[in-house]
């Protein structure tokens, strides 16, 4: 390849134009192809994401097939100054749902049944989602979507709550924290710290930079790996640890605090929303 060392001849303006045209055409053709592939595959990707979401929710709440899941989407209607909740069975496209509207200060402003596939009113801003698991007509647990500001971008999470609002499980479902540092907050052992704390304990939850006790870390790892006895070790140490703050990931205090704040805010918001919503959604199949 020694020939490559010879300097190339100088380019005239016509030649430069041809190069630019060549690159532009290549880029445009590539972009057109990618657009076509995206349009062909995106609904399958969305369907797969939905299946993954449902599996995660059932897993987090340890649900069996007797429980049904209702998805409640929350919207803001800015010009009417109202909050709209729309509930429908999760993943059943076209199933009839129920819509409840509140004013911003929490007074009911109407409710109605909506037929499946009814489009949303224009101008609604999505605020968040929650999932209510029902068994024999009563709530068997909740999964609430929450988010907070991480070290780089927002961190999205699912918080699973029992009917008494204690934490059943927590998952970070989307984040862009640094691998090896902030990304550790998405690992099973970190989220294990939240499990089984009551709603009142979560409301006061703080973060500490103190080192995590070794026995607690071992119990969290054992529970994360679902090894036999892991949950029992976790339960044995919980009375000591539940009064203590969340131990931050070393070198990632901001990410740890972001997740903790996110969980606290998510639980707090959900309890207040549910107090409003429950009388209206009680009859939903």
């Amino acid at each position, binding site marked *: 390849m020694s020939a490559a060392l010879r300097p190339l001849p100088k380019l005239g303006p016509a030649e430069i134009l041809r190069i630019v045209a060549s*690159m532009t055409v*290549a880029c445009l053709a590539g972009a057109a*192809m*990618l657009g076509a592939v995206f349009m062909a595959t995106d609904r399958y*990707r969305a369907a*797969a*994401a939905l299946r*993954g979401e449902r599996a995660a929710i059932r897993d987090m709440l340890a649900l069996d097939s007797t429980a049904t899941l209702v998805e409640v989407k929350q919207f803001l209607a800015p010009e009417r100054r109202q909050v709209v909740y729309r509930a429908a069975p999760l993943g059943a496209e076209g199933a009839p749902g129920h819509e409840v509207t509140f004013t911003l200060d929490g007074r009911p402003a109407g409710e109605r049944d909506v037929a499946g596939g009814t489009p949303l009113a224009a101008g609604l801003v999505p605020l968040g989602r929650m999932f209510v698991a029902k068994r024999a007509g009563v709530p068997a647990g909740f999964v609430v979507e929450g988010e907070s500001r991480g070290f780089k971008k927002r961190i999205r999470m699912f918080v699973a709550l029992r009917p008494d609002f204690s934490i059943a499980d927590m998952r970070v479902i989307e984040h862009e924290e640094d691998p090896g540092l902030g990304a550790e907050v998405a690992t099973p052992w970190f989220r294990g710290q939240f499990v089984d704390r009551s709603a009142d304990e979560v409301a006061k939850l703080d973060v500490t930079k103190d080192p995590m006790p070794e026995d607690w870390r071992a119990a969290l790892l054992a529970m994360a790996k679902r090894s036999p006895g892991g949950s029992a070790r976790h339960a044995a140490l919980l009375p000591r640890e539940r009064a203590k703050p969340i131990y931050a990931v070393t070198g990632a205090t901001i990410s740890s605090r972001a997740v903790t704040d996110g969980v606290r805010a998510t639980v707090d918001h959900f309890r207040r929303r549910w107090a409003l919503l429950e009388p209206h959604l009680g009859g939903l199949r």
Partner: protein
Amino acid sequence: MSTVLLPGPAPTARQLILNGIFAENPVFRLALSLCPAVAVTTTVANGLLLGVAVLLVQVLSSVTVTLVRGFIHPRVRIPVYTIIIAVWVSAIDMTLAAFTPALYAQVGLYVKLIVAFAIIISRLEVFASRQPLVPSFFDGLGMGLGFLFALVVIGAMRELLGAGSLAGIPLAPGKPLLFFALPAGGFFSIALLMALFNWVERRTTGKSSAGGAGGTHGV
């Protein structure tokens, strides 16, 4: 790049495919794209998925370059090759994300990196940009199969020794040699297999003096 193309009669499809798998195997002979070969091959399934993705990208890119090379300005051929590879990689990436989400969650990161795999762009530059459509197709197929073969063999060795299972089926209790599942074990696995490859090749070529198909060099 030390690959030299033989002038004279065009190699047959069979020669080209065997050349990619054995004489110029991308991992074991050309020692290209070793980084992904270490990173993803902790199990057979991972190696297989990435191998199939590379095979598809290599064949599609080789064919595309052969078809459009008349329109590519020689001064910008490398950027245009990169665009072609990137388009195919993104298309395959989106398809995998849509249809195999569980596997994609594990190796999705590496699929995007195929854009920068040395083996693909080197085949475009040394082969597909100079040869007709049919040989380019078979060269791409051979190189892709060679890479796939290498990843599956490395994955099988590391999964068997590191996790005591093969293709997800547990064969031995516990973790016999966890070392092989770790990155350092990946390098050792590749080195051992490369040595085996060389040994076998020396034995076979020593006996039969058939120098493979088009393979004209060591690395």
